[in-house]
């Protein structure tokens, strides 16, 4: 039996039972999605998909990766992206495709020719369902990446502590990505608030190793290049002892045990700078 006969049978079946199949398909998918998606929306999606598959079979056969399935694939990617954003599971998403198998099975599997056609159709749908899973996973990854980025932004608040003094309370681990965000925000806030002093507080950083130290030093150097004085505060006793044993030298960078001490000192210096400025004017 030639493959064309299979596609011919499929096209005929899909065309003559269109309304009936769409209704059944919609019923199965609707049950799986349990009202979390509007029926009208879901029926529209399935209707478009049905036409696209039908046309693709007519144009190019049964290869899900083939050129003829371009339209089908973009519809499925779109559908999967939406499902991923709406919080459906990958299984629920793939079910939207798989369900069409169950719809066609009774209509085709009566005799041998039909059964063979059905198996080919099932294989096609497997390929298309795989595509939805891939698109689904990719979308979820995008969502997670963007959430991680937002979290990074949120977890590094740079605040003005006093006129002329900005502070960054660091919490958690300080990796390269985090350092970059901290540095950019710190420099921007120095400019925005017209500040001359920056305090980086590491009370919330559990481990200060050579990488963290290097990142801190880099941030201090950048702040200095903007003409700001930079202090590192919140160096707890156990961290101080560990830094010394590691052999890290903070050079001439000012350090303080507590944020309060660092702030007191910075405020004094800001006041002194202002005094000097006034004296300079006289």
């Amino acid at each position: 039996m030639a493959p064309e006969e299979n596609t011919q049978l499929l096209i005929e079946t899909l065309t003559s039972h269109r309304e009936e199949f769409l209704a059944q398909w919609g019923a199965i998918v609707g049950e799986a999605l349990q009202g979390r998606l509007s029926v009208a929306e879901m029926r529209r999606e399935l209707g478009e998909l049905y036409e696209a598959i039908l046309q693709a079979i007519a144009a190019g056969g049964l290869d899900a990766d083939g050129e003829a399935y371009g339209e089908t694939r973009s519809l499925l990617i779109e559908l999967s992206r939406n499902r991923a954003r709406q919080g459906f599971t990958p299984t629920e998403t793939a079910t939207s495709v798989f369900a069409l198998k169950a719809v066609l099975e009774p209509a085709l599997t009566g005799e041998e020719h039909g059964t063979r056609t059905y198996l080919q159709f099932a294989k096609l749908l497997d390929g298309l369902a795989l595509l939805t899973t891939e698109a689904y996973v990719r979308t979820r990854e995008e969502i997670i990446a963007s959430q991680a980025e937002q979290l990074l932004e949120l977890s590094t608040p740079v605040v003005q502590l006093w006129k002329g003094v900005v502070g960054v309370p660091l919490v958690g681990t300080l990796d390269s990505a985090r350092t970059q965000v901290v540095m950019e925000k710190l420099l921007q806030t120095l400019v925005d608030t017209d500040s001359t002093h920056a305090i980086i507080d590491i009370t919330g950083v559990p481990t200060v190793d050579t990488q963290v130290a290097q990142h801190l030093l880099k941030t201090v150097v950048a702040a200095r290049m903007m003409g700001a004085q930079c202090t590192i505060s919140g160096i707890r006793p156990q961290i101080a002892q560990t830094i010394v044993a590691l052999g890290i030298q903070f050079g001439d960078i000012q350090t303080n045990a507590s944020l309060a001490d660092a702030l007191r000192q910075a405020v004094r210096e800001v006041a002194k700078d202002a005094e000097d400025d006034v004296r300079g004017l006289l």
Partner: protein
Amino acid sequence: MKDYLTGNATVESVPVASSKDVVQARQVVRNLAQRGGLSLVHQTKLVTAASELARNMVVYGGGGVVRAAEVNGPQGVGVFVEFRDDGPGIRDVEQALTDGWSSGRGMGLGLSGAQRLVNEFDIQTGPDGTTVTIVKWNR
């Protein structure tokens, strides 16, 4: 160094391939140190040493496995940690242990600093990889 792992019921194993895994390895070591009753200073020193050695595995050894366990010795309770990678090895260990020497863009303090932070320290290295073992005692 003595074989502290065989027959030890507290061994925890962490595959380390990225900096995310370094954080995980650090947490496992910290938990063991806390359970073993190490003082806050000892805990911090041990965890920092573990952080350095695990990161070296990622950066220079192409990743590997960290295994840690609570151990008992004449000095009391301690934590043993092994860092094993099958990277290219360290060509000149003496040089690598010199403060400030780095083949990359590091501070060159990780290896030498880690040695100062713990009580026992051993490096076995060759073209088939590097294994660093450390012990921090609770005293």
